[in-house]
């Protein structure tokens, strides 16, 4: 297999909510970039439509029985409105799809919880909600990550970028590309409270993959997912270089408003705040190859100092000049 469990040369995508504005654009772009990676689309009531470069079905059950594409479908890309996500996930799981991406933002937390527990029972992989998708330059793309021309940000290499923020996933890949490191995989896991795929879930999956040279992780305040990475590394569960940036320190300095629950603070005592995450990862960095960047752009220096070899030449000048100046 070429690629990862999240995206590989066997990946065949079915898009749920295929004829919506964003989804249809993504299908068309994907077809142009990696022809044939998207196999089918589902929109109830639009079965048989020819508006997309892939066949459209009313139900997933029809699609998986289709003699042409049915057997090729193994990955679902979900683009339905927030309140329909749970329904879409159940439709996918009940029809045997084992890898799902939830692109939809603002999924109700209660639904996210039901989805997570169902996924655990069925042994499926779900990325998101609020994922932007996945990019493995040597294999293909799932979702809109990187836009119309992903070559701006992505070039094949050895770095794995894992980020809660979709936008930063691309921004980070681009920053590294300019400085000589390419991307093996970029995965936008989404920042939802109940995250179906966490940083440590990914690290466990890619642990033995020889193509992985280093991991760049972008974290945010809230939850315990970044702390879990520190725990995983210190327990010997991942030994390749990890550079991390955790945003949100400034929120701790802002006047406290309706701060999040005391209860949250109890369940996750000493976790959740940006500074908690940073100190846990820094502690892991004393014995293991882990570096936390103070400024986001220091991630490049962190990867450099961890001794990760460049995939190609550094192309950026030391001091970047503005495109235009009126001052």
């Amino acid at each position, binding site marked *: 297999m070429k690629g990862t469990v999240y995206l590989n040369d066997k990946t065949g995508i079915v898009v749920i909510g295929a004829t919506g504005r*964003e989804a249809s*654009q993504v299908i068309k772009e994907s077809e142009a970039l990696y022809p044939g990676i998207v196999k089918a689309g589902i929109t109830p009531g639009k079965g048989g439509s020819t508006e997309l470069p892939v066949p459209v079905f009313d139900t997933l059950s029809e699609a998986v029985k289709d003699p042409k594409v049915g057997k090729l479908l193994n990955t679902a890309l979900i683009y339905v409105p927030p309140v329909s996500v749970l329904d879409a996930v159940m439709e996918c799981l009940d029809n045997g799809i084992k890898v799902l991406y939830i692109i939809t933002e*603002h999924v*109700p*937390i*209660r*639904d996210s*919880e*039901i989805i*997570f*527990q169902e996924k655990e029972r069925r042994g499926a992989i779900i990325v998101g909600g609020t994922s932007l998708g996945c990019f493995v330059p040597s294999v293909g793309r799932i979702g*809109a*990550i*990187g*836009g119309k021309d992903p070559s*701006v940000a992505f070039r094949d290499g050895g770095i794995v970028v894992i*980020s809660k*923020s*979709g*936008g*930063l996933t*691309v*921004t980070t890949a*681009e*920053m590294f590309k300019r400085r000589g490191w390419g991307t093996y995989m970029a995965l936008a896991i989404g920042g939802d*409270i*109940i*995250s179906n795929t966490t940083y440590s879930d990914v690290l466990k999956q890619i642990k033995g993959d020889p193509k992985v040279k280093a991991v760049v992780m*972008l974290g*945010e305040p809230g*939850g*315990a997912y970044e702390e*879990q990475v520190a725990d995983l590394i210190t327990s010997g569960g991942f030994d390749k270089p990890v550079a991390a*940036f955790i*945003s*949100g*320190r*400034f929120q701790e300095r802002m006047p406290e*408003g*309706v701060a*999040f*629950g*005391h*209860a*949250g603070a*109890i*369940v996750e*005592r000493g976790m959740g705040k940006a500074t908690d995450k940073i100190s846990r990862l820094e502690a892991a960095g004393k014995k293991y190859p882990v570096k936390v960047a103070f*400024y*986001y*752009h220091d991630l*490049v220096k962190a990867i450099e100092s961890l001794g990760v070899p460049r995939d190609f030449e550094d192309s*950026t000048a030391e001091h*970047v000049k*503005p*495109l*235009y*100046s*009126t*001052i």
Partner: protein
Amino acid sequence: MKLYEHEALGSIFKKYKIPVPRYVFATEMNDAVSQFVEKESGVVVKSMVLVGKRGKAGAVKVVSDKSKVADVVKDLATRDVYGEKSIGALVEEKLDIEKEFYLSVTYSTKDRAPAIIFSEHGGMDVEEIDPKLIHTHVITDVRSVYPYQIRQFLSNVGFSDKDLLRPLSEVIVNVYNAFVGAECRLLEINPLVVARSGDKRKIVAADAVIILDDDASVNPAITYGARSAQGRPLTQREQDAILIDQGDHRGKAGSYVELEGDIAMMTFGGGGSTVTAETAIEAGLRIANLTDIGGNPPAEKMYRISRIILSKPGLKGVLVCGGTASNTRIDVTLGEGLAKALDDMKAEGKLDKNLVWVVRRSGPEYVKGLKMLHECFERNGIRGEIYDSQLPITEAPIRLKELLIKHIGYKPENVG
């Protein structure tokens, strides 16, 4: 969204049969309060504010002398509590309290599941309770939660009052059902009291903190009205910004929060906005407002939010900053929306020429979009620098700081 105590009692506790004291809510002293007080031997009066630790601020008062109730209600219904204005007073029966528990339900991200948190030592700030005395029960199967499971949990953690096992387990299940049914992020009762009533004992929720999921299937802003997450009323500009996204789901431009600074932040994308703001603050810039624009909003939305951002008085600099967009069109957002706002503000004499600008943006049609914006800068005499993604995103606020110091003698904050 956080609810006021009287909202939690009236709309959620009642529905899920969580026992509460007899109460009446009033914005001022009135007949309903007088009649209520008449029937009680004593009352507790509480200011209705969203901030916590009301008791320590003197915003919760026990009143036994009925002649004093009117004055206390008048005071607590209108006073400021930690800077937040009370919207009314909750007047409750005074309970004969035997003991106080702590109870809450929230999502534990460690377990990726709802967790019930219980302590026999409630009443004080939960942070002050010895962690050894706080017990957590994780709900690993949300499809079925029964009182017997709660009794097993209470038994396992050595709950001392065996007579209360059944009634308490039933109240806790009701609280859990309220948490799930009302789509909460947090439901906290501190204290959950055991009160004497004649020769009987009853369990009563003597407080109610509810934070609803803002993404709940029914938007809480529709049910309870929009409210600022900062524990203060929304400013006019914040209210205007909310309207931008109403009834138009193309992209998002109305998420706007004001602070007390002098640097306007026009930032794009959740993650990008956060790191940019963060770096700006670390670099010593005082932020005047925060925005999070994304999802390819049309030019009209960009026009409106640009005017709101730039209308805040006292600005010295503007940072327009985002990563490499996947979807958002740079020609539409910056080349059309922002540029038109600047043209119009200039024509109306509302554009401050002394502002220093740094723009850093990339994404679909960025070459065209940045060129259009540059032309707009030229024709309106706007001073600044425009970058694409060659400049790492978080170096943009640092560039702005350098320009501000050089050109207008800006004095950055000394950040530790």
